[in-house]
């Protein structure tokens, strides 16, 4: 099978690579670009550890072909912190102990960051629904909810300060 040449902007940087059509986005990120932040868990689009943004939307990168992202923009957990400063959701997970083993965390962070753009002032129920595509087997979710509430508050405060 002929490889396809694709051009994908990942965390703001353009990458041109020849890929097999069957290469999944998660394998493209981890093996071609060495971006191993997004993890591989269930591989059946249930667990959410492979969550990244494609064209500004949360997706499970284990269930998307890299060729489908040709010409598109992908954002991964490696791009969350800017200039050595943690993103509000990263700070939230750190302050509120939103992780134990950390395996689900890259997917949680990416989904939480996108969710808070979709809904900057969520209720606890809305957070639970918004994060329902991400599984954690350690925390019982309580601290993950608190972490996202922390980040929502912080983002709102910085928005107010900027206004």
């Amino acid at each position, binding site marked *: *099978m002929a490889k396809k040449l694709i051009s994908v902007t990942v965390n703001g940087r353009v990458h041109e690579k020849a890929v097999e*059509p069957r290469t999944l986005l998660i394998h493209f990120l981890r093996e071609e670009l060495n971006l191993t932040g997004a993890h591989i868990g269930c591989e059946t*689009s249930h667990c959410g550890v492979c969550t990244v943004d494609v064209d500004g939307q949360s997706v499970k990168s284990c*269930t*998307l072909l890299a060729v489908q992202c040709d010409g598109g923009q992908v954002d991964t957990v490696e791009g969350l912190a800017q200039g050595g400063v943690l993103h509000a959701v990263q700070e939230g997970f750190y302050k509120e102990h939103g992780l134990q083993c950390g395996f689900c965390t890259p997917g949680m962070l990416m989904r939480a960051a996108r969710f808070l753009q979709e809904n900057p002032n969520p209720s606890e129920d809305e957070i639970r*629904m918004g*994060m329902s595509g991400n599984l954690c087997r350690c925390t019982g979710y309580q601290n993950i909810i608190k972490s996202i509430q922390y980040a929502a508050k912080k983002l709102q405060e910085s928005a107010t300060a900027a206004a």
Partner: protein
Amino acid sequence: MIPPRFEYHAPRSVGEAIALLGQLGSEAKLLAGGHSLLPMMKLRFAEPAHLIDINRIPELRGIRLEGQTLVIGAMTTENELINSALLQAHVPLLPEAAQMIADPQVRNRGTIGGDIAHGDPGNDHPALSIALNASFVLEGPKGRRTVAADDFFLGTYMTLLEENEVLCEIHVPAFAAGTGSAYEKLKRKTGDWATAGCAVVMRRQGGVVSEVRIALTNVAPTALRAEAAEQAILGKELSVANLQAAADAATAICDPAEDLRGDIEYKTAMAGQMVKRALVKAFGRCA
């Protein structure tokens, strides 16, 4: 898990997609949201030699109102259904039910057309389409044809869609004023298929049901229209006895497969419960 090897095609128009289907025949599969097909390919339940990705065909996306009909492009995602002001105003059952499908990430990719055309009895849009009296526009080399949702589903993974056709549009009648609707879906967890589900679209006059369509999810090889259940409640009040009669008529046609979600008796009983809940909720929403 990596899918088996295949050739990838990304047509830019429906015509191109149909031409590819014609050339490649049964070796080809259409790729919509991919959240059923790609997992099946990883597990080697499906090994198409060619994938025709229809995600880059703009004419297959979007929602518009034509007269009293909502025209929904087959590649419209679940998330787009949820956020559609047109649907919220004219067919509120669809955005409400779409929130019960899968999870936020999957809803960004999964499409209404893929959910329908896949022919999986566990999918939700088949029963919703039947309850909504929807019809499907299929396009092939000989042009377009329109088929009723009632007639489309033939068996598990079997539909009226021919190998050389593309499902292009879903046509849904806008609700008449006062219409009530509900989708009740029993599931074990987010992302699971229904143990049993029931969609109801209804109108009432005074205390009496004057129009009703009832359809069931995942309790038979296809989604089912529960016509005997409709007859059991039509022209009647929603009394305990009438609700039970409708539920009994619905469970009489159930033929579920036993699996981890339950045995046949349990799933059938839950279908009856979903029918009762959906009828009561839809009735309460009628004006």
